[in-house]
């Protein structure tokens, strides 16, 4: 069955052909457009939050602020960062990087996208029911006050979770069964390793979130009392269930980002990755440890001291495989021929921001200091440094790195670099002051604050505008590339992984002849 060689963008066109496409590359782009839309939405809520906090006093009613905060969190977590890298870049490049023609279950892949869309529509419909104001964590007993919007949101999260499980399942089967001849596990690109580790987390952790939100919905509909202290239930059990998923979910968000960074660091320093095996297996190690640390979210929720100390120690342990990755990236950079392209800038940005995020995590994992920092802006800053700084830097770097392959056009380097400058500086201007605010004792989640916190909050809000502006530039750079970029060659960056051995954009069947692999993924000499 020799292919026609036509690119996946040609052949059938029209909206319907995209909405029914089983091609993993088209599904990847479907995810790209939908996640970009959700990102815009979540971003607008973020800007509204920062606008309210620009100065003390209420600009919006407090209730409305609580909704901004909830939707910002829920949309960004469940509809942007979790599907982000795996569903967009993973879908597009995982099969290409292992020399496969598609993912294992193409129909299931498309179905996952429809599940996510259904969940998104449901989540947005909650706005019509008065909106959800519980925060993205849906803590009981506040979340069981029988509001229809909460019920619908719980089901939306359930279905989004289902989408995530099916994506993960698909990727695991793809990695196990569809590797090209010669592509042993130890020759897989590190991005594949990262997506693979993430997929394991998606399959194992997400079902627990599923049952948790299902119980939450039943609690709201039938008043079953499992989380309701008035009926003998335990609200802390909800927290255990929720974090049993949501801590691993943190790695569902960041492991793929680390995979992207591994690819970029080796490509743009034209050097074989340092410590391939260590980076590959540290992904699995992070995935494994991440199941044993959920209690660090509950140091002040009433758990035994023994449990708290155990969770504290295990949490610090995650730092080991994470540091292994970071040091290996640094060693890769050392004496490499570094090219300061946009993806490389985002890579360095990732390392800078993620390191600060990781280091400040130590303070939150230490029980004594956590008592001081918990529920302050320190936590908000830490979380955004690891998740937003980490994942967004990687997703932007990855997007520019792979854009020529995805659309077959080159982007304008100076415009793209400009997006990095604004996003990177804006990010630090927004979130660094929040570490200080948290340390000063400013509690998170409130719509108002004491006048003493005003100047740092103003700086933070100005930073948020810079981030917003940076993303507009990035959007412009992408549109400009698609509309008038010069045609991309097969391998513009001199990368060594398989996706660069096929046309840009790739043909529908990925490779006209199935590649045979004879060496590791980063043989730069």
């Amino acid at each position, binding site marked *: *069955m020799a292919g026609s060689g036509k690119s996946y963008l040609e052949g059938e066109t029209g909206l319907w052909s995209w909405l029914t496409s089983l091609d993993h590359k088209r599904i990847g782009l479907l995810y790209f457009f939908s996640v970009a839309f959700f990102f815009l939405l979540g971003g607008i809520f973020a800007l509204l939050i920062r606008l309210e906090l620009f100065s003390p006093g209420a600009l919006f009613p407090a209730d409305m602020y609580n909704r901004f905060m909830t939707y910002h969190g829920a949309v960004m977590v469940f509809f942007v960062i979790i599907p982000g890298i795996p569903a967009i870049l993973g879908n597009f490049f995982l099969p290409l990087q292992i020399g*496969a*023609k*598609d993912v*294992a*279950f*193409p129909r*299931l892949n498309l179905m996952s996208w429809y599940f996510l869309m259904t969940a998104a529509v449901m989540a947005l419909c909650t706005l019509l029911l008065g909106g959800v104001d519980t925060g993205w964590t849906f803590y009981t007993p506040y979340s069981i006050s029988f509001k229809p919007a909460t019920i619908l949101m719980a089901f939306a999260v359930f279905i989004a979770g289902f989408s995530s*499980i099916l994506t993960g*399942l*698909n990727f*695991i*089967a793809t990695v*196990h*069964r*569809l590797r090209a001849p010669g592509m042993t596990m130890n020759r897989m690109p590190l991005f594949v390793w990262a997506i693979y580790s993430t997929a394991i987390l998606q*399959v*194992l*952790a*997400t*079902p*627990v979130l*599923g*049952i*948790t939100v*299902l*119980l939450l919905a*039943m609690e709201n509909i*039938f*008043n*079953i*009392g*499992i989380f*309701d202290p008035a*009926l*003998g*239930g*335990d609200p802390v*059990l909800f927290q255990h*269930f929720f974090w049993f998923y949501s801590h691993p979910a943190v790695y569902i968000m960041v492991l793929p980002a680390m995979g992207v960074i591994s690819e970029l660091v080796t490509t743009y320093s034209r050097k074989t990755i340092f410590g391939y095996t260590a980076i590959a297996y540290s992904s699995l190690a992070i995935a494994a440890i991440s199941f044993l640390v959920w209690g660090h979210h509950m140091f002040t929720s009433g758990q035994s001291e023994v449990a708290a100390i155990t969770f504290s120690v295990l949490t610090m342990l995650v730092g080991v495989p994470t540091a292994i990755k970071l040091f290996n990236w640094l060693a890769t950079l050392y004496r490499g021929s570094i090219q300061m392209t946009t993806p490389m800038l985002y890579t360095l940005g990732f390392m800078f921001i993620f390191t600060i995020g990781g280091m400040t995590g130590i303070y939150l994992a230490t029980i004594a200091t956590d008592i001081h920092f918990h529920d302050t802006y320190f936590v908000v800053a830490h979380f955004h440094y690891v998740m937003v700084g980490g994942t967004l830097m990687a997703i932007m770097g990855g997007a520019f790195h792979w854009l020529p392959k995805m659309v077959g056009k080159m982007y304008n380097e100076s415009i793209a670099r400009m997006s990095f400058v604004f996003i990177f500086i804006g990010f630090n201007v927004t979130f660094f002051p929040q570490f200080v605010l948290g340390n000063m004792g400013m509690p998170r989640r409130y719509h108002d604050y004491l006048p003493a916190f005003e100047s740092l909050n103003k700086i933070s809000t100005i930073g948020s505008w810079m981030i917003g502006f940076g993303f507009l530039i990035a959007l412009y750079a992408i549109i400009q590339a698609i509309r008038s970029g010069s045609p991309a060659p097969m391998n513009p960056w001199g990368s060594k992984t398989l996706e660069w051995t096929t046309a840009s954009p790739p043909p529908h*069947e990925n490779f006209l002849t199935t590649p045979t692999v004879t060496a590791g993924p980063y043989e730069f000499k």
Partner: protein
Amino acid sequence: MSSNSQHHHFAHHFESEEHEYATSKEGVWLFLVSEILMFGGLFVGYIIYQHMYPQVFHEGAMHLDWRLGALNTIVLLFSSLTMVLGVHFSQLGDRKKAVTALAITILCGAIFMCVKYIEYSHKIHEGLLPGAWYTGETHGLSNMGLYFSFYFMMTGLHGTHVLGGMCLILWVLLRANKGEFNSHYYTPVEGVGLFWHLVDLIWIFLFPLLYLVG
């Protein structure tokens, strides 16, 4: 039917029928793992509360009729056997026997659901309801409803799976009836079979936990 010998065309990204079969089967197993973890949450919750309120769970279990539970256990175990036969005869391409075995499996599922219906209506009648709705005997315990929250959540979620399983078996039954399965291609029956066995297995754990702890 001799037309059974025609080869099933595997999807373009696989190398062979076996390749497609093995991959699909792995997909089903992974899905089953996620199912186990979802039920796992309920089991963990059950164990914690049973530990916290042993009296409530003891009294609650006394309200269940273990004979009906045992009957359903036997029905489901038998249905697992007929499911295995359904897969076996599909693989042999024996259309008639495969359809019969699958039909009996669906019938067993229906019997299970009927028994559940009888049990549920009995509970509802006596006010043995979850959480705040509990109006039955309290035995001096303030949160007797908690046991029934778990009872209805666990059996309800399981019952939903039984219904879903019945629909899936009906789907493969119709395909088997068209003579679509043979030794080259019987992946859907195999996958649905695995799912059905998991549904049985979960009941095997639910039965002692809910009915026999008292």
